[in-house]
Structure formats: C-alpha cells, structure tokens
C-alpha cells in the first residue's frame, strides 16, 4: 500500500511529508526531487521507479503530489486517491497552490491522517469529512453523543456521502448536462475520430433522505419501453428528429446502485447534499458536430505561407454559440503575419506560435472565414514543419450527443413533500474538448 505521501513546490522543496510505512526512508524525499522534479527531461512516465521505490506523481499547477511505495500496490487506486485528495483539498481551501498549502498545513495533516490509514484509503467524501474535520477547533465535549455516533455511522455507513436530518425550506435541484465534443478531422474533411464525453452534474438541495430516479433518452431504455407503449415514444422529446441515443459506456457516482443499473438499466440513488457528478458517459454515434473547419494551407516559395480557414456552424439558427476561438498554428520561423477576417478578432501570438481568432457569438448555419499571409524567415533547418492541427474552442447551448433528460423523480417517504414540490432546473452545455482539424 501507499508508504508515504509528499507534496513539493515547483522548486522541489517539501511542503508536506507524511510517512505511513517504515520502509519509506527520508532519502526517498530527496530521490524524487533529484530524479523527477529537477530532471532535465520532461516527464516520461507518471510512475517512476528509483532504487526499488515507486513514485506515483501528479502535478497541479506548480505543486507536485507524490505517493511513494515499495510494494506491488494497485496503481490505478493510487492515482485515483491522489486525484481525490486534490478534490478534497480544493473543497476545503480552494485552489491548490503553495500559499494555500502552507496556510492549511495543519488541516492537510489532519486530512491525511483521516483519509489514509497505514496507506489504505479510507472514506474521502468531502461531505462526510466536513462534518468532523473542521478548522474551528471543535471541543469533543460539545458534541452530543448522538452527534458523534451520527458522524461515525455516516463515515462508515452504507450511505457515507449523506448525513441524515438535512432540511431545506425550498426543495430544489439543478441538473447540468455538460458535454465535451472531441474531434479529429483529416484535411479533406473526413472524420478520423469523434466522440462526446459527457457528465451529468447535479446540485441538490433536498430535505431528508430522498430517493431519486433519473431518466434520459437512452436507446436501450427507450426501445424496451417502446415495445410496451408504442405511442409514448412518438410524442416524447422535442421532436429533434433523434429520439434516443446510443450510449457507449457510462460510469456513475458511488451513490448510484450499480446492480440495479446492470439488471434494469434504471438509475436510482440517494444523492449527496450539494454538488456532485452523477454520471459520466461516452457516445460515438450520431454526434452533432457544431462546427466544421475547412483549412487551406499553401506554401508560396520558401518564405511565405498562405492560410485560409473557413468555419461553418452546423446547428439550429435560433441557437447561439459562444466563446469561439480558432487556433491556427504557425511555423517556428514566422517573421510576420497579416490577417484578414470577416468576423471577430484575430491576432498573431508569437509566443504561442499561433494565430488566435476569437468570435464572441455565432448563430447556427452560418459561416465565417479568415485568411492570413505568413512571412517566414529562411532557415537551413532540414526538419520539416510538423504542421500541428488547427484546434477550436467553443460553447453551445445544447448537447452534441443528443442526450435529453427525460425525468428526475424524487421520493421522500418520511417527509411530506412530493415530486411535484421539488423545483428542478435542467441546463445543457456543449463544449469543445479536443476539437482538431489537420491541415
């Protein structure tokens, strides 16, 4: 299991050092600094073995987190734990930075003591942790016996993510369907790979221990129901033409009853209080690609390059895409760039070796164009310019996968509010993931 956990700043100074096992000596701390942080090369592997000691490391802004072990541990678990730890720290004190870590020194040690015992990860749900690891110096006698046992039963219990006795005057929930569209397109416009990775994030402000059931236009469910009541599927959904989508795979927050999903494909759970990620999913079929990028690069002699890029928006004209940014890479030996664009602003950024073209808003079914002339310095470098792909960023108010939330039902048998009393909000946001077109 994990033998020790170290946090370093970018200079390699140790900020936090917690050793769980005897086989990890103090020299391990230095070994990592010398071999990884101060290494000249970029990181060639997230797992480094130095003198039979394995270091798992992740970097968050300028901070290195390293878990150390000498045993054959579950590597996936160690990384998951490191991420989780980042989440917990972020939930407690915001951004992970050197200053924040130094200011929350005591808190971090207290957390590390609680969520990792002898190198075994323990309950690390922020909701539960916040009930008994606070920075207000609780005096143990101030807690009643019931409170104490409530804490322990929550930390160890079946529903470790939610405490009992939560009360809200207004029962409300927010559902965000956040998708990121990933695309790799050849210069000829052929889709090399495209997928949507989506998340359903839920913010719940519900009283008691509500039992929720979530439904979406999953093809398998719709088809199953379609056999029973044929007309229901017909009238459902906004008539977008696509009634159901094929989900390649999905994963759920630990509150979802997986065995029930496996057998009935129904998603039922008792949600944690506040914000959490209910599910993640991935689709590859029938993706609506919001934008199409058509590149044209022409080399005029050895010192000049002509670039023309057309973007076309491909969704309902009534919808507006936002924060559009097209990044056109330029060769390293660029000396000057002239840009003409019909819409938005375009700028050559020498430090990033790219022309960045920004458009604030763009409606569906429109197109826009940019053309640029790039002057090159003559070089005798034999190596050809690698022509990195043109990438794009945007945000659209619909789900490119076609996913629709059909219902989210809430049952709380003990308290007197019903599904109708809960105020529900649903929002769809589609963002660009890695949206690239080769040129």
């Amino acid at each position, binding site marked *: 299991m994990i033998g020790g956990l170290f946090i370093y700043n970018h200079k390699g100074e140790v900020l936090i050092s917690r050793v769980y096992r005897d086989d990890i000596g103090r020299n391990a701390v230095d070994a990592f600094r010398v071999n990884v942080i101060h290494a000249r090369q970029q990181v060639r592997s997230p797992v480094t073995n130095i003198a039979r000691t394995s270091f798992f490391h992740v970097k968050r802004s300028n901070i290195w987190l390293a878990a150390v072990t000498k045993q054959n*541990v579950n590597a996936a678990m160690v990384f998951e734990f490191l991420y989780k730890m980042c989440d917990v720290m972020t939930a407690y004190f915001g951004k992970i930075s050197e200053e924040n870590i130094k200011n929350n020194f005591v808190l971090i*040690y207290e957390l590390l003591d609680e969520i990792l015992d002898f190198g*075994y990860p323990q309950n690390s749900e922020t909701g539960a942790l916040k009930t008994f690891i606070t920075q207000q110096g609780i005096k143990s006698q101030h807690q009643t016996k019931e409170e*104490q046992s409530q804490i322990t039963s929550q930390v160890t219990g079946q529903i470790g993510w939610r405490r009992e006795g939560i009360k809200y005057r207004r029962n409300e929930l927010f559902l965000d369907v956040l998708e990121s569209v990933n695309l790799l397109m050849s210069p000829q416009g052929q889709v090399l790979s495209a997928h949507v990775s989506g998340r359903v994030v839920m913010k719940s402000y519900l009283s008691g221990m509500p039992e929720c059931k979530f439904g979406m236009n999953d093809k398998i469910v719709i088809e199953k129901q379609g056999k029973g009541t044929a007309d229901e599927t017909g009238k459902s959904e906004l008539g977008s033409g696509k009634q159901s989508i094929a989900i390649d*795979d999905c994963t759920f927050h630990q509150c979802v009853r*997986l065995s029930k999903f*496996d057998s009935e494909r129904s998603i039922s759970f008792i949600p944690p209080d506040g914000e959490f990620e209910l599910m*993640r999913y991935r689709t590859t079929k029938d993706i609506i690609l919001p934008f199409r990028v058509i590149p044209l690069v022409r080399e005029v002699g050895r010192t000049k390059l002509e670039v023309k890029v057309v973007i076309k928006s491909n969704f309902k004209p009534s919808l507006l895409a936002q924060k559009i940014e097209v990044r056109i890479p330029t060769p390293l030996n660029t000396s000057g760039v002239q840009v003409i664009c019909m819409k938005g602003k375009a700028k050559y950024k020498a430090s990033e070796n790219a022309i960045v073209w920004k458009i604030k808003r763009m409606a569906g079914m429109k197109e826009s164009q940019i053309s640029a002339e790039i002057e090159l310095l003559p070089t005798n470098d034999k190596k050809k310019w690698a022509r990195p792909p043109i990438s794009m960023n945007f945000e659209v108010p619909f789900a490119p996968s076609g996913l629709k939330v059909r219902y989210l039902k809430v049952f709380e048998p003990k308290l007197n509010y019903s599904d109708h009393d809960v105020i529900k909000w649903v929002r769809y946001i589609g963002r660009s993931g890695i949206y690239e077109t080769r040129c």
Partner: protein
Amino acid sequence: MQTDNLELKKLVYLYLMNYAKSQPDMAIMAVNTFVKDCEDPNPLIRALAVRTMGCIRVDKITEYLCEPLRKCLKDEDPYVRKTAAVCVAKLHDINAQLVEDQGFLDTLKDLISDSNPMVVANAVAALSEIAESHPSSNLLDLNPQSINKLLTALNECTEWGQIFILDCLANYMPKDDREAQSICERVTPRLSHANSAVVLSAVKVLMKFMEMLSKDLDYYGTLLKKLAPPLVTLLSAEPELQYVALRNINLIVQKRPEILKHEMKVFFVKYNDPIYVKLEKLDIMIRLASQANIAQVLAELKEYATEVDVDFVRKAVRAIGRCAIKVEQSAERCVSTLLDLIQTKVNYVVQEAIVVIKDIFRKYPNKYESVIATLCENLDSLDEPEARAAMIWIVGEYAERIDNADELLESFLEGFHDESTQVQLQLLTAIVKLFLKKPTETQELVQQVLSLATQDSDNPDLRDRGYIYWRLLSTDPVAAKEVVLAEKPLISEETDLIEPTLLDELICHIGTLASVYHKPPGAFVEGGRGVVHKSLPPRTGSSESAESPDTAPAGVPAADQPSVIPTQGDLLGDLLNLDLGPPVSGPPVATSSVQMGAVDLLGGGLDSLMGGGSGGFAPAPGTAVPSNTGAPLGSGLGDLFDLTGGVGTLSGSYVAPKTVWLPAMKAKGLEISGTFSRQVGSISMDLVLTNKALQVMSDFAIQFNRNSFGLAPAAPLQVHAPLAPNQSVEISLPLNTVGSVMKMDPLNNLQVAVKNNIDVFYFSTLYPLHILFVEDGKMERQMFLATWKDIPNENETQFQIKDCSLNADSVSSKLQGSNIFTIAKRNVEGQDMLYQSLKLTNGIWVLAELRIQPSNPSFTDLELSLKCRAPEVSQYVYQAYETILKN
C-alpha cells in the same frame, strides 16, 4: 495530550508518531494517555488513539497496545472497528509473532462477517496484506460462503473498499465454471463505477475467471462484449490514469485480442497527449492492426512520423515496419511510406526506417529489393549501430545485386575496431557472404576481415564466429556456401509479445504496479512480500489446451510456443535441455579427449589449406571453438544470426549406465564394462578396462566386426601406461559410421574383439539406437506431412510405453536431447499428440506420432506410432524411446 480539543490532540499525536522512534523513552510516557483515550466515550477519539498507537513503532509500546486493540476490535462503533482492523496489520508489521499469539488473526477473520461494509473492507485489506507475508498459511480462507459475504459487502462499501474486496476476490480459485460465472455476474456491475481503479480491479477478476468459462458458452461472449466499453472509457480519464489503463490494455490485448479489435480509433494519438500516453497508444495500435483497419493505421502512423518528439517518431517509424510484417497486404504501402520518410533526410527517421526495412526483407525476401538503391544513398548518414548493422546486413544479403558492394563494405571495414560488436559481427558475416557470392574479387577483403575478427579482437563472440567462418571456408567451401547462404527462416509477425507464462501472471496483477512495469512483482519488490506467483486458473470443460501453470513453472519459458517466437522455438528447447534434461552420466574424461582429437584434425586441415594466405597461422587449441565444428553445424548455423545461440545445440543425449560386457572370468582377468554415448555429433564408446589378473597388461587394441550401421573405431584404442593389477582405466573411444556394413540380428548387435599382451577376447553387445540419431534430424513441417502420407501404412508400427511420469513438454524436451525432434504438438480430446522426426546416421528417416494419455494423475501412457521406409528399425527406435523416457 490531556486536552479535549480534538484538533490539538491530533497534532500532539502526529508529533509523537514522528519522534517516537528517536526518543522511545519519552514515547512510553504517552502510553497511559493512549490507553485512557481508547476508553473515551467519543468514538472518534477511541479510533484516533488506536490508529496512532499502531503507528508508534517502539517495541515497549506495542505490548501495551494489545489490550486496547482487543477491545477496539469488538467496539460497538463501526468507525472504531474499521480503524482497529487496519491496526492489526500495523501490529503485524512490527511484531508478527505477537499478533498470532494474541489471536488477533481470528478476530480479524470474524470481522469479515461484520455488519458494516467498511469494516469488512478494511478487514479484507488487512488480512490480504498479512496473508502475503505468509504465502503458505491459509489465512484468507476463501470459500463459497465467505465469497458470498464479500460480494454482498461489495455493493455497499466505499469505492476504496470495493477495490480491496475485488483485489482479494481475484485471488480466489472458484471450484468450477458455474461458480466462476456466478461471481462474474455479480462483479460486472462494477464496470460502470466512476472510479477507474474499481473498474480495473473488476476487469482483473473477470479476466481471471473467464479462463474457467467454456468458450462455447453464451455468457462468455456477452462478457467479452461487456469488457470493451469500460476499457475504452478509461481512456477519457486523467493522463496518469490513462497511462495505467493503457499499460493494462496492452496486456489484455495480448491475452484476448478479440475484446478490443473493433476499437482501434480510440487509440489514435492526440496532439496534446503526454508523451507517455502517446507511446503506449502506439504500441496498442500495432497490436490491433489488421487487414481491416490497416489503411487508417498507416495514415495515422505517417502523420506521427512527422511529430517533434524523437522517441515517438522513432517508434512510429518502427511501427510502420511492424505493420508491413504483420499484415502482408499492406507491405507494399508500408515500404513506399518508409521510402517517403527516408526522403525527408531527417537523420533518425532514416536510420529507423533502414532498421525496419531490413526486417521487411527478411519477411518478404526477393520482393522489395528495388529500394536498395535508395537505401545505399543514405549510407553516410548512418551513425547508430543498429542502423549500420541493418544496412550492412542488407548489403551482404543482396551483394550480388549491388555492384559496388565490396567498396561499400570495405569503407565500413576501415574503422572496424571502433564499431560496436553488433556492427562488427554483421560486417564479418556480410563480407563472408560477399566472398561466397563473388569469390574472385573479394579474397583480400575476406582475409582482412577474418584476421581482424580472429586476431585483433578481444570479443569472444566475434572471434568464435571468425574462426568458424575461417574453418568452413578452408575445409569445404561448398559446405560453407550451404551454411552461410542457407535459406533463412522467415521472421515471425510479433516479436515483442510478452512471454505467455509471464503474461498470465501479469493478467493476475491487472491494475497493480506489476502490470504497469510489465514485470512480475518479485522484480521490483524487496523481500518476500508480494512475490507469491499468481497464475490463471486452468480452463475447465473445454477441449482447448490451456497452458497449465503446473506444467510450465513461471520464469522458465515453455518450450513449445511456436506462435510467439517460432524461429527460436527449437533453440529454446535446446537451452531447456541443458538445464532440465537428464544428467549426463558419462565419464567426464571421455568428452574432452574426443574434442581435443577433433580440434587437432581440423587444425591440421586448416593449416594446410589456408597456409599460404594466413601466413602459417595455427590456432592454439585452447582458444579454438571446440564443439561447433562437427556435424551439428548444419543445424547450428541454419540461422547465421543466432550464432551465439547455435552453441546451445550441445545436446545432452541420454547415456545408459555402464554394464559389464566382458566378465573377468572369460578373459583371463580383463574385465570390460562400458556404454555408448553421443556428444555433439560424435559417437563414442566409453570403456572401463579393469585388470583383475595378477600380471600387468599392455598393448591393447580393439576391432569391430562388420555391423548394421557401419560402426567402427575412429581412432586406435590408446591405453598409455600398462595396466597394473587391480587397476582400471577409463577410455573413451571415438566411433564413426563409415565402417563396412552387414545386417546383424538383432539389428543393433555389435561384435567386438579386444586384444592385449595376453590374448584376444571376443564379446558382443547391443548398442542403443539413439546414439545413431543425428543432430539435423528435424524435418520441415511440410516435408513431414508429405513424407508421412508417402510412407505406406503397412510400414507403420505401434508400441506402448506404460507408466511414464512425464507430460508432453518434458517428453519432447527429453527426447530432443537425444535428437528426436518434435515438429508439432496438438491437443486432441485432452490428449497431447507430438509429431516427431529423427534421422539415422545412414540417412534413414523415422517419423513418429506420440500420443500421451494420462492414465492416472502422476503417470501417463504413451502410444507410439512409427513410420519408416525401413520398418525393421522401428522396434529398435521404440527401445530407444523407452530407454530415454524411462531414465
């Protein structure tokens, strides 16, 4: 410490943990508080106390820990119990004996049935850890009931707990396929968990238990289908986890390629992927490449070859070559892509391309030689050994088509001593090839390189290879041509697959560090911990031959894995023989004297033949290659590039213990006992002459009567000193098979006359036929099939060998030691069938089909069918089989 501020208490405890070791006496003073805190009404404090106490590694304190720990293990609060469970593991780490004596292990086992899932999970984790340090103990006594409990807890505990439980489940061995299936069914829902580690651990359990399911089962197919999506989803995790997932997918793809065969696209490299993810994706792309997707893959690879990172580009170029070798239809396109890349003149791309083109030439000889001209243009830019060696190989191999091959090679020869060994060896071989192809113009060159290799080099490999060529060329240029320019076996498709037993072990370690490093845990874990070898369960209810872990001990490569490295399969077998074969009981004196003789013979021949050119160079016997010059050269040198391996064909043929051939009574006091042996192609008769008379014996001589295979002494019987009374001498008499032939009855009867100063004595003996089995008795597969059909059925004879305690692999390796070669192995209805061939010194081929029937657990019955054009030898071949196998 007495404070009731929880936060302050935690800090004090933390201080204690860190400094207890350096100030043990101070730590003792804290014991009272710990004991008191373990009784605190607040469960958080009780747990904190027991947690901290376990972390203080001071012997005196551990004694005080026992009582509080015992109480906490039975605490009413689950939070305290789950902490105490881990504390047992801590205590065990400090003092294992104490834990056993105090009976904590039993309490821990009881916790597996606890009502709280988190307690169960922590107890499982603690027990698994303790069990690892006691591999023999039956600590984690997993049975269907406890498995059921674990599976129930699995649905309820935290993500981490699920990982502990799944990792523990993976160590369980279900008793039959039905149990395996029911566990699989309950584990599959975990594949949708958001935590990648849970998913990977579930995949591990499924991959392992799948071994037990019959492939015909519907469920098997569904399971395969269910595995693909979660594996693909892992690739959308953070890059570090992607890396772990990719390393594991690499294993899974090798074990069960069918799972991900349609998912090629997800492994396409993204521009922003970290380099470690890119390299791993590339590896998997190659493994998944097939005729169906090759066009796409090639287009991608070409794209990658223009990227920035040198390692990545190299790997991409290499990948193109591997595609060509793997998918024949794409070879042409691959070659033209490689040529395009060579035109870029980027140094490392060119070098890498040349290395892979060499492999393509070996896979498709005489097909793409038109590109040689382009390659030669880039000769000067090559500065890496591997690329230089590859280029030299190409020049040597196609010397007849390259007009200035001699000039090219000569230019390399100038800096011979500065080259790396790889290049030197290749250069030596290439020039010899050139000489054999164009003997007239290149005589000087070949002598130059031979003298460089043999006289000026300190490298034994190089020297040995030099000597072998030198002798070959001098003794028999025709044979040299046959050997050096022999047709090379085609290279296999996949050369970098993980060796199957290791792969099976790694599959059992999916998700862990071992699967990331692709090494067994023992390779990077210190001490005994975690070094327990894990193996996949044997398949039940299926006719397929599973590589049973019992027959192939981990670490030793299985002899018969033609799918992996066919070109080296037999070599591997030979090496195995050296280690595992029956000990050769022949007298040690014998072998060395035989070899010395051989060397002398050759040395003389060499001198006379090469005398003019080499300036009277005579090899010192000690430095000469002793054994490889004999008959086995044919097989040893079949693949010139494995010459070092060729030495491994030293076969340890079975030698029977000596028996008395001529009792003293019948020979006026001379007793002769002896046996026959075959060492590296030469037969010898190992004799012990004992003088049991009262007078000195001298003037020994020996003669054989004409016999069935023309056995005759190759040298006179030399007994250097007279044999004093009650003295004995061991002699090894080299034999050849060029004597006159007469059919004897029995066939293997040998009549011998021995003379000494007293009289002439006669005796007869039977020699085992296997001394006549020659080293190059391995028939080509195709040939074998044709010959088998060709020989009429009446020539087939069948024999039984009862109660043999060997399995197929050991049978085949044992027989190979005596030059009976296994050509193919098949499994029909649970019985292993071996197809073997052997050749006698007089050129008679004998083909065999050996059926291995397990008669009871430890013994097998062998059924031997022999086919031979001269059926009268069959019986004696059978006897040879029996003697080899039973000894």
